[in-house]
Protein backbone atom coordinates (compact mmCIF):
# COMPACT_ATOMS: atom_id res chain seq x y z
CA UNK A 1 0.00 0.00 0.00
CA UNK A 2 1.35 3.41 -0.98
CA UNK A 3 2.28 5.69 1.90
CA UNK A 4 2.86 9.35 2.74
CA UNK A 5 5.48 10.84 0.44
CA UNK A 6 4.78 8.48 -2.48
CA UNK A 7 3.73 9.97 -5.81
CA UNK A 8 0.07 9.19 -6.46
CA UNK A 9 -0.09 7.07 -9.64
CA UNK A 10 -2.12 8.79 -12.35
CA UNK A 11 -5.21 7.06 -13.73
CA UNK A 12 -8.28 7.57 -15.85
CA UNK A 13 -11.46 5.76 -14.81
CA UNK A 14 -15.09 5.98 -15.83
CA UNK A 15 -17.39 7.92 -13.51
CA UNK A 16 -20.50 7.40 -15.65
CA UNK A 17 -21.16 5.54 -18.92
CA UNK A 18 -20.08 8.65 -20.85
CA UNK A 19 -17.65 10.50 -18.59
CA UNK A 20 -14.17 9.69 -17.29
CA UNK A 21 -12.11 11.22 -14.49
CA UNK A 22 -8.34 11.64 -14.75
CA UNK A 23 -6.45 12.20 -11.53
CA UNK A 24 -3.86 14.56 -13.04
CA UNK A 25 -6.62 16.78 -14.47
CA UNK A 26 -7.85 17.73 -10.98
CA UNK A 27 -5.30 20.52 -10.76
CA UNK A 28 -5.27 22.88 -7.84
CA UNK A 29 -7.35 20.58 -5.65
CA UNK A 30 -6.63 18.15 -2.91
CA UNK A 31 -7.94 14.69 -3.69
CA UNK A 32 -9.40 12.11 -1.39
CA UNK A 33 -9.54 8.57 -2.76
CA UNK A 34 -11.82 6.18 -0.90
CA UNK A 35 -11.32 2.63 -2.14
CA UNK A 36 -14.05 0.26 -0.97
CA UNK A 37 -15.04 -3.33 -1.68
CA UNK A 38 -18.51 -3.09 -3.20
CA UNK A 39 -21.58 -0.98 -3.91
CA UNK A 40 -24.65 -1.97 -1.89
CA UNK A 41 -22.92 -3.89 0.91
CA UNK A 42 -24.04 -2.46 4.28
CA UNK A 43 -20.76 -1.07 5.58
CA UNK A 44 -19.82 0.55 2.28
CA UNK A 45 -23.21 2.14 1.98
CA UNK A 46 -22.83 3.71 5.42
CA UNK A 47 -19.35 4.91 4.54
CA UNK A 48 -20.40 6.50 1.24
CA UNK A 49 -23.54 7.96 2.88
CA UNK A 50 -21.31 9.57 5.49
CA UNK A 51 -18.98 11.09 2.89
CA UNK A 52 -22.03 12.37 1.05
CA UNK A 53 -22.90 14.35 4.19
CA UNK A 54 -19.34 15.51 4.84
CA UNK A 55 -18.71 16.92 1.34
CA UNK A 56 -19.09 20.48 2.59
CA UNK A 57 -16.41 19.82 5.24
CA UNK A 58 -14.08 18.49 2.53
CA UNK A 59 -14.86 21.47 0.30
CA UNK A 60 -13.74 23.84 3.05
CA UNK A 61 -10.29 22.35 2.52
CA UNK A 62 -10.51 22.60 -1.27
CA UNK A 63 -10.71 18.83 -1.45
CA UNK A 64 -12.72 16.61 -3.73
CA UNK A 65 -13.51 12.96 -2.99
CA UNK A 66 -13.80 9.98 -5.32
CA UNK A 67 -15.07 6.57 -4.31
CA UNK A 68 -13.41 3.67 -6.17
CA UNK A 69 -14.48 0.05 -6.38
CA UNK A 70 -14.37 -2.72 -8.98
CA UNK A 71 -18.10 -2.34 -9.69
CA UNK A 72 -19.03 -1.28 -13.22
CA UNK A 73 -20.39 2.13 -14.22
CA UNK A 74 -24.02 1.02 -14.42
CA UNK A 75 -23.86 -0.48 -10.96
CA UNK A 76 -22.26 2.72 -9.63
CA UNK A 77 -24.93 4.77 -11.34
CA UNK A 78 -27.79 2.78 -9.78
CA UNK A 79 -26.16 2.83 -6.34
CA UNK A 80 -25.37 6.52 -6.54
CA UNK A 81 -28.90 7.37 -7.61
CA UNK A 82 -30.44 5.23 -4.88
CA UNK A 83 -28.33 6.90 -2.17
CA UNK A 84 -28.46 10.44 -3.66
CA UNK A 85 -24.67 10.64 -3.76
CA UNK A 86 -23.20 13.97 -4.84
CA UNK A 87 -19.69 12.78 -5.64
CA UNK A 88 -18.25 10.47 -8.27
CA UNK A 89 -17.85 6.75 -7.86
CA UNK A 90 -15.16 5.48 -10.22
CA UNK A 91 -15.24 2.06 -11.84
CA UNK A 92 -11.97 0.14 -11.49
CA UNK A 93 -13.59 -2.46 -13.68
CA UNK A 94 -11.45 -3.15 -16.75
CA UNK A 95 -8.84 -4.40 -16.31
CA UNK A 96 -10.36 -5.34 -13.00
CA UNK A 97 -8.75 -3.73 -9.99
CA UNK A 98 -5.82 -2.26 -11.98
CA UNK A 99 -5.88 1.13 -10.23
CA UNK A 100 -6.49 -0.41 -6.81
CA UNK A 101 -3.44 -2.59 -7.51
CA UNK A 102 -1.31 0.47 -8.41
CA UNK A 103 -2.12 1.85 -4.95
CA UNK A 104 -1.42 -1.52 -3.34
CA UNK A 105 -4.96 -2.07 -2.12
CA UNK A 106 -6.29 -4.82 -4.39
CA UNK A 107 -6.85 -8.18 -2.73
CA UNK A 108 -9.13 -11.19 -3.24
CA UNK A 109 -10.84 -9.65 -6.24
CA UNK A 110 -11.94 -6.41 -4.55
CA UNK A 111 -10.51 -3.06 -3.53
CA UNK A 112 -9.62 -2.95 0.13
CA UNK A 113 -11.19 -0.33 2.36
CA UNK A 114 -8.42 2.23 2.00
CA UNK A 115 -8.19 6.01 2.14
CA UNK A 116 -5.65 8.34 0.52
CA UNK A 117 -5.31 12.11 0.81
CA UNK A 118 -3.31 13.58 -2.08
CA UNK A 119 -2.04 17.17 -2.15
CA UNK A 120 -2.14 19.61 -5.08
CA UNK A 121 1.26 18.40 -6.34
CA UNK A 122 0.05 14.82 -6.64
CA UNK A 123 1.88 13.54 -3.57
CA UNK A 124 0.19 11.22 -1.11
CA UNK A 125 0.06 12.98 2.27
CA UNK A 126 -1.90 10.42 4.25
CA UNK A 127 -3.14 6.90 3.78
CA UNK A 128 -5.10 4.50 5.92
CA UNK A 129 -6.10 0.87 5.52
CA UNK A 130 -9.26 0.03 7.45
CA UNK A 131 -10.31 -3.47 8.48
CA UNK A 132 -12.57 -4.50 5.60
CA UNK A 133 -15.71 -4.72 7.74
CA UNK A 134 -15.17 -1.42 9.50
CA UNK A 135 -16.35 2.02 8.41
CA UNK A 136 -13.27 4.25 8.86
CA UNK A 137 -15.38 7.41 9.16
CA UNK A 138 -14.16 10.83 8.07
CA UNK A 139 -12.20 12.04 11.09
CA UNK A 140 -8.85 10.76 9.78
CA UNK A 141 -9.42 12.45 6.42
CA UNK A 142 -10.30 15.76 8.08
CA UNK A 143 -7.27 15.66 10.38
CA UNK A 144 -5.05 14.93 7.38
CA UNK A 145 -6.57 17.81 5.40
CA UNK A 146 -6.14 20.16 8.34
CA UNK A 147 -2.46 19.36 8.66
CA UNK A 148 -1.83 20.40 5.04
CA UNK A 149 -1.11 24.00 4.08
CA UNK A 150 -4.03 26.03 2.67
Amino acid at each position, binding site marked *: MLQQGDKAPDFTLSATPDRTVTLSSQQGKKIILAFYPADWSPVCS*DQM*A*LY*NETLRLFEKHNAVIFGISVDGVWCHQAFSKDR*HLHFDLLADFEPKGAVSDLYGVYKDGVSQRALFVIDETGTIQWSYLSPIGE*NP*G*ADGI*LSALESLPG
Partner: protein
Amino acid sequence: MLTPPINTRDHITGNPQGTIELVEYGDFQCPYCGEAYPLVKHMLQALQDVKFIFRHFPLSEAHEYATDAALAAEAAGRQGKFWEMHDALYENQAQLSEGLLSQLAKILRLDMKQFAADMEDHQLLSKVEADFESGVRSGVNGTPTFFINGKRYNGDFTDLLSTLNGTDASESEI
Protein backbone atom coordinates in the same frame (compact mmCIF):
# COMPACT_ATOMS: atom_id res chain seq x y z
CA MET B 1 -12.67 10.88 21.80
CA LEU B 2 -15.65 13.14 22.11
CA THR B 3 -14.77 16.50 20.52
CA PRO B 4 -15.69 18.97 21.87
CA PRO B 5 -16.44 17.63 25.36
CA ILE B 6 -19.88 18.18 26.91
CA ASN B 7 -20.53 21.91 27.19
CA THR B 8 -23.23 24.50 27.85
CA ARG B 9 -24.60 24.21 24.30
CA ASP B 10 -25.59 20.59 24.94
CA HIS B 11 -29.02 19.32 25.91
CA ILE B 12 -28.73 17.32 29.10
CA THR B 13 -31.23 15.03 30.80
CA GLY B 14 -31.09 12.17 33.30
CA ASN B 15 -29.08 13.11 36.34
CA PRO B 16 -27.20 16.34 35.57
CA GLN B 17 -24.83 15.54 38.44
CA GLY B 18 -24.38 11.93 37.29
CA THR B 19 -20.83 10.62 37.13
CA ILE B 20 -21.48 8.55 34.00
CA GLU B 21 -21.73 10.75 30.91
CA LEU B 22 -23.56 9.14 28.01
CA VAL B 23 -23.70 11.02 24.71
CA GLU B 24 -25.77 9.89 21.74
CA TYR B 25 -25.27 11.14 18.20
CA GLY B 26 -28.64 10.48 16.62
CA ASP B 27 -30.91 11.13 13.67
CA PHE B 28 -34.67 11.38 14.28
CA GLN B 29 -35.45 9.51 11.06
CA CYS B 30 -32.90 6.73 11.57
CA PRO B 31 -34.70 3.46 12.37
CA TYR B 32 -31.84 2.19 14.54
CA CYS B 33 -32.01 5.38 16.62
CA GLY B 34 -35.72 4.68 16.90
CA GLU B 35 -34.89 1.24 18.26
CA ALA B 36 -32.36 2.66 20.69
CA TYR B 37 -34.78 5.30 22.02
CA PRO B 38 -36.84 3.07 24.41
CA LEU B 39 -33.66 1.35 25.57
CA VAL B 40 -32.07 4.66 26.51
CA LYS B 41 -35.28 5.75 28.20
CA HIS B 42 -35.40 2.53 30.20
CA MET B 43 -31.71 2.84 31.04
CA LEU B 44 -32.20 6.38 32.39
CA GLN B 45 -34.96 5.10 34.66
CA ALA B 46 -32.94 2.10 35.82
CA LEU B 47 -29.69 3.95 36.51
CA GLN B 48 -29.58 6.99 38.74
CA ASP B 49 -26.04 8.04 37.96
CA VAL B 50 -26.27 8.78 34.24
CA LYS B 51 -26.13 12.19 32.61
CA PHE B 52 -27.53 11.85 29.06
CA ILE B 53 -26.72 14.19 26.19
CA PHE B 54 -28.19 14.12 22.69
CA ARG B 55 -26.33 15.62 19.73
CA HIS B 56 -27.69 15.78 16.20
CA PHE B 57 -26.26 13.68 13.39
CA PRO B 58 -28.85 13.97 10.62
CA LEU B 59 -28.04 12.05 7.44
CA SER B 60 -30.08 14.50 5.40
CA GLU B 61 -29.43 12.94 2.00
CA ALA B 62 -30.63 9.56 3.18
CA HIS B 63 -33.43 10.83 5.44
CA GLU B 64 -35.37 13.72 4.00
CA TYR B 65 -36.95 14.87 7.29
CA ALA B 66 -33.89 14.34 9.49
CA THR B 67 -32.63 17.93 9.46
CA ASP B 68 -36.09 19.46 9.85
CA ALA B 69 -36.78 17.11 12.75
CA ALA B 70 -33.51 18.18 14.39
CA LEU B 71 -34.50 21.83 13.89
CA ALA B 72 -37.92 21.11 15.40
CA ALA B 73 -36.24 19.70 18.51
CA GLU B 74 -33.99 22.76 18.75
CA ALA B 75 -36.92 25.11 18.16
CA ALA B 76 -38.86 23.34 20.92
CA GLY B 77 -35.73 23.68 23.04
CA ARG B 78 -36.00 27.46 22.76
CA GLN B 79 -39.33 27.08 24.54
CA GLY B 80 -37.85 24.72 27.12
CA LYS B 81 -39.21 21.55 25.53
CA PHE B 82 -36.25 19.96 23.73
CA TRP B 83 -36.65 16.58 25.42
CA GLU B 84 -40.41 16.55 25.02
CA MET B 85 -39.95 17.04 21.27
CA HIS B 86 -37.06 14.55 21.18
CA ASP B 87 -39.32 11.90 22.74
CA ALA B 88 -42.34 12.79 20.61
CA LEU B 89 -40.28 12.52 17.41
CA TYR B 90 -39.04 9.05 18.24
CA GLU B 91 -42.43 7.91 19.47
CA ASN B 92 -43.98 9.01 16.17
CA GLN B 93 -41.04 8.21 13.91
CA ALA B 94 -43.09 6.10 11.50
CA GLN B 95 -45.35 9.08 10.75
CA LEU B 96 -42.52 11.56 10.30
CA SER B 97 -43.42 14.27 7.78
CA GLU B 98 -43.35 18.05 7.60
CA GLY B 99 -46.91 18.15 8.87
CA LEU B 100 -46.06 15.99 11.85
CA LEU B 101 -43.50 18.50 13.13
CA SER B 102 -46.06 21.27 13.57
CA GLN B 103 -48.63 18.78 14.89
CA LEU B 104 -46.21 17.74 17.62
CA ALA B 105 -45.41 21.37 18.34
CA LYS B 106 -49.13 21.99 18.86
CA ILE B 107 -49.52 18.95 21.09
CA LEU B 108 -46.59 20.23 23.15
CA ARG B 109 -48.44 23.55 23.39
CA LEU B 110 -45.60 25.53 21.88
CA ASP B 111 -46.08 29.11 20.80
CA MET B 112 -46.62 28.26 17.13
CA LYS B 113 -45.59 31.63 15.75
CA GLN B 114 -42.33 31.49 17.63
CA PHE B 115 -41.84 27.83 16.63
CA ALA B 116 -42.29 28.65 12.92
CA ALA B 117 -39.83 31.55 13.18
CA ASP B 118 -37.26 29.43 15.02
CA MET B 119 -37.52 26.65 12.42
CA GLU B 120 -36.20 29.19 9.89
CA ASP B 121 -33.51 30.60 12.18
CA HIS B 122 -30.03 30.07 10.75
CA GLN B 123 -28.56 29.97 14.22
CA LEU B 124 -30.43 26.76 14.90
CA LEU B 125 -29.30 25.26 11.61
CA SER B 126 -25.72 26.21 12.51
CA LYS B 127 -26.11 24.44 15.83
CA VAL B 128 -27.36 21.26 14.12
CA GLU B 129 -24.49 21.46 11.63
CA ALA B 130 -21.99 22.05 14.43
CA ASP B 131 -23.29 18.96 16.21
CA PHE B 132 -22.88 16.98 13.00
CA GLU B 133 -19.33 18.22 12.48
CA SER B 134 -18.41 17.45 16.08
CA GLY B 135 -19.71 13.93 15.46
CA VAL B 136 -17.55 13.48 12.37
CA ARG B 137 -14.58 14.81 14.37
CA SER B 138 -15.30 12.42 17.18
CA GLY B 139 -15.34 9.42 14.85
CA VAL B 140 -19.08 8.96 14.40
CA ASN B 141 -19.62 7.00 11.20
CA GLY B 142 -23.29 6.14 11.48
CA THR B 143 -26.21 6.44 13.86
CA PRO B 144 -26.77 5.92 16.64
CA THR B 145 -23.25 6.27 18.04
CA PHE B 146 -22.77 6.51 21.78
CA PHE B 147 -19.90 7.87 23.85
CA ILE B 148 -19.44 6.79 27.44
CA ASN B 149 -17.38 9.27 29.47
CA GLY B 150 -15.98 10.72 26.25
CA LYS B 151 -14.96 7.43 24.69
CA ARG B 152 -16.74 5.92 21.70
CA TYR B 153 -18.78 2.86 22.59
CA ASN B 154 -18.28 0.27 19.86
CA GLY B 155 -20.57 -2.41 21.22
CA ASP B 156 -24.18 -3.12 20.37
CA PHE B 157 -26.55 -0.50 21.78
CA THR B 158 -28.80 -3.24 23.11
CA ASP B 159 -25.99 -3.97 25.62
CA LEU B 160 -25.75 -0.36 26.84
CA LEU B 161 -27.55 -0.94 30.12
CA SER B 162 -25.39 -3.88 31.11
CA THR B 163 -22.26 -2.05 29.98
CA LEU B 164 -23.14 0.99 32.09
CA ASN B 165 -24.03 -1.27 34.97
CA GLY B 166 -20.54 -2.64 34.72
CA THR B 167 -21.98 -6.11 34.77
CA ASP B 168 -22.60 -8.79 32.26
CA ALA B 169 -26.20 -8.99 31.01
CA SER B 170 -26.48 -12.66 31.95
CA GLU B 171 -25.32 -11.90 35.51
CA SER B 172 -27.85 -9.12 36.04
CA GLU B 173 -30.68 -11.46 35.14
CA ILE B 174 -29.80 -13.93 37.90
